[in-house]
């Protein structure tokens, strides 16, 4: 008996309360020393039954629900839902409404990517400095949202047929300031993280996602682009007049966490480019088509998808000519992106699992709905 040291794998719960799970999400990891040999995802802690509740409310009343799915990009969620309703009811949006939607969606992408990049850096252990810098920039965007819609986080700004209010006079100078301040910030982040040897050592080759795996798991957004697949709904299936703006799709090299990170940074640059163009060519005219409050779309179904900061965000609606949707379904990008987590974590260490989870950039409100 003496002289034999027995070792056996044990289960460690990463979450539901853990500094790096970005909400109440849990990974049941079986570890052998530092190595993860099995990982099981446990979710549903934040389930609020939104899809069912939405069947009892009118189409307009459902917009605030979409704020609360992906609470870090409420504008994009509003937009996706409104596009689906407009498709269902056949409503045209005036050009000014479309341009405002594009500006808002891209500002939201900047804000959301700030959070993603900062939180990811925090997961790699850069003690709060990048996340504070990112929050500093994100605040400026939230200020713009506050000026325009009255709310910072859950904006509830998009309406069926356009947007809720016209832009205020303060809006344009504020956005111009973002356009001026943001490129130095992105450069700063690149200097602090992208070119940092420790950061590269921590993220290069960690959580590698091959193109086949990414497509088979039906991933989207920066996850998919990090694996070197040029796919962006804004290019592939343009909405809101994205086809008139000139921008590029950034794609990564070998699909590791580092690639996802640099893809996000570059997407911020591209978003700035789109905002610049949209702001310069902002058309006049009405910002909204008048739509009856109790909208009763014709019988049928519609699926609208947009490129949210996290990937393909789809809304599927079925109408039975009633005032509320017969079926309301969300295709949340975080949830589907998360499905590749097990493949990416098993074989790495516990520290790698945290980095991989951070690179997926999940929002638990969207996973559990």
């Amino acid at each position: 008996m003496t002289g034999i040291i027995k070792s056996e794998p044990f289960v460690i719960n990463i979450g539901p309360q853990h500094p790096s799970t970005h909400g109440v999400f849990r990974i049941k990891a079986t570890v052998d020393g530092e190595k993860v040999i099995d990982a099981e995802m446990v979710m549903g802690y934040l389930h609020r039954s939104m899809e069912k509740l939405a069947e009892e409310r009118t189409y307009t009343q459902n917009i605030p629900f979409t704020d609360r799915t992906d609470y870090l990009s409420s504008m994009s969620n509003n937009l996706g839902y409104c596009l689906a309703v407009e498709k269902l009811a056949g409503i045209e949006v005036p050009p000014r409404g479309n341009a405002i939607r594009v500006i808002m969606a891209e500002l939201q992408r900047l804000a959301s990517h700030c959070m993603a990049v900062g939180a990811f850096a925090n997961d790699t252990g850069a003690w709060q400095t990048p996340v504070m810098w990112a929050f500093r920039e994100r605040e400026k965007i939230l200020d713009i949202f506050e000026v325009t819609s009255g709310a910072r986080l859950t904006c509830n700004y998009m309406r069926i047929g356009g947007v809720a209010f016209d832009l205020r006079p303060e809006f344009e100078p504020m956005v111009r300031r973002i356009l001026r301040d943001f490129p130095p910030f992105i450069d700063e982040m690149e200097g602090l993280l992208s070119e940092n040897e420790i950061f590269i050592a921590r993220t290069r080759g960690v959580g590698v996602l091959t193109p086949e795996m990414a497509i088979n798991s039906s991933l989207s957004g920066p996850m998919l682009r990090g694996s070197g697949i040029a796919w962006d709904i804004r290019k592939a299936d343009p909405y809101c007049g994205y086809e008139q703006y000139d921008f590029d799709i950034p794609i990564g090299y070998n699909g590791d966490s580092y690639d996802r990170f640099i893809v996000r940074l570059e997407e911020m640059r591209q978003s700035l480019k789109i905002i610049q163009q949209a702001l310069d060519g902002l058309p006049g005219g009405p910002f909204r088509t008048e739509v009856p409050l109790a909208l009763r779309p014709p019988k049928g179904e519609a699926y609208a998808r947009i490129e949210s900061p996290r990937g393909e965000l789809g809304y599927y609606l079925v109408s039975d000519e009633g005032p509320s949707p017969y079926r309301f379904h969300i295709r949340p990008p975080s949830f589907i992106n998360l499905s590749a987590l097990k493949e990416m974590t098993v074989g790495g260490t516990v520290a790698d699992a945290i980095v991989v989870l951070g690179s997926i950039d999940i929002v638990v409100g969207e996973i559990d709905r």
Partner: protein
Amino acid sequence: MTPFLVSDKWYDIRDLGNLSRALLDAADKILPGGVVYVLAALIGFVASFLLFVLPSQLIIGVYGERRIIGRMQSRLGPNRVGPFGLLQPIADAIKLIQKEALTPTQADRVVMYIAPIIFVMPAVLLWAVIPFGENMVIADIPVSLMYFLAVSALPVIATFMAGWSSNNKYSLFGAMRIVSMAISYESPLVLALLGAVVMSGTISLSGMVAWADQYTIWMVFVQPLALVIYFICVSAELNRTPVDIAEAESEIVAGYLTEYSGMKWGLFYGMDIGYALAASGFAATVFLGGWTLFGLEKWVPGWMIFIGKTHLFYFLFIWTRGTLPRLRADQLMAFAWKFLLPLGVFNLLIVSTERMLWAEQDYAKGLIYVFALVNIVLSVGLVYAWARFNGYRPERTPTRPRLVKQAGGYIPVGERP
């Protein structure tokens, strides 16, 4: 006043000791026998708290660190309690004392209770051998460098006890990591210091200060590589970011401290800063010339120069903490064995050769400056060459993604989009 003044210099800290001795002698005549010993202990405690713990550990350590890191993170840092928030550490301490120190039911209660106490003791003992000024060293033993290394390795036992006794998986992770890390990093640390020892020819800290004073050069210029290795190793041993894997908060919650709360946690937290300050003081003594400053020590109190240098070095810890991400445990081990250890050996080889040459020249003062110049160049070259040899190729890591105009399928690397 004159009877208990050591020197005519107003700032000589030894006067305080003489003053208290005079007071105690006077008290001994009045009070019944034995009471004076209690009084002496009380005076000693209060004095050491007021002189060392309060200004250096609480104010500079806790407050300064939080304030500087706050500035680095573009926020204000503590600024509410007292003027400029200076009383924040004291408010924190009061809060910690009030809090309940929880013990999990399944924990090993005794070991969990004594672990913070064992952690505190070496932090105090370390200061015994560090010279604060001329003659201002509590125990001027001839092997003080070895004493420092030996004592500074003790807290690892306390942290392992803490991690093991908590009966928590995260704590166990932290404990496992810190033990493996301490074993890995002790050898390059000693090798680096050996360079300084060979160059100065002494193993006593006072002797090293005297050496720096005699040749009017700091050890850091003669042994730049040794300082770099020392700094990395000591960061690892002290659990400072970028190498704080034992309490990596984003991975294993708080490592060995996960189950600790209240003042038991406070002792770990406070003494972490105490160790960092002691390590800084040690580095200031060995590498930055201690309390001497090229003749300025005749005009400015030596202990002021020493504290200034200590905090200058401590600022490096704060700086790295504010900027760098954390390495993974296995990368950290690889770094110690594959990178720091060979570099330490190379450094020792170079410094031994130089010492031999220097001895042949009868320790000429001018030669040391030549060595300094040669060593600075050699260190930079050596670090770069060894990194390249180990596969460091920054130009092969693209830091910007590829850009494509059209949506489509997979684009292999190398194919023009």
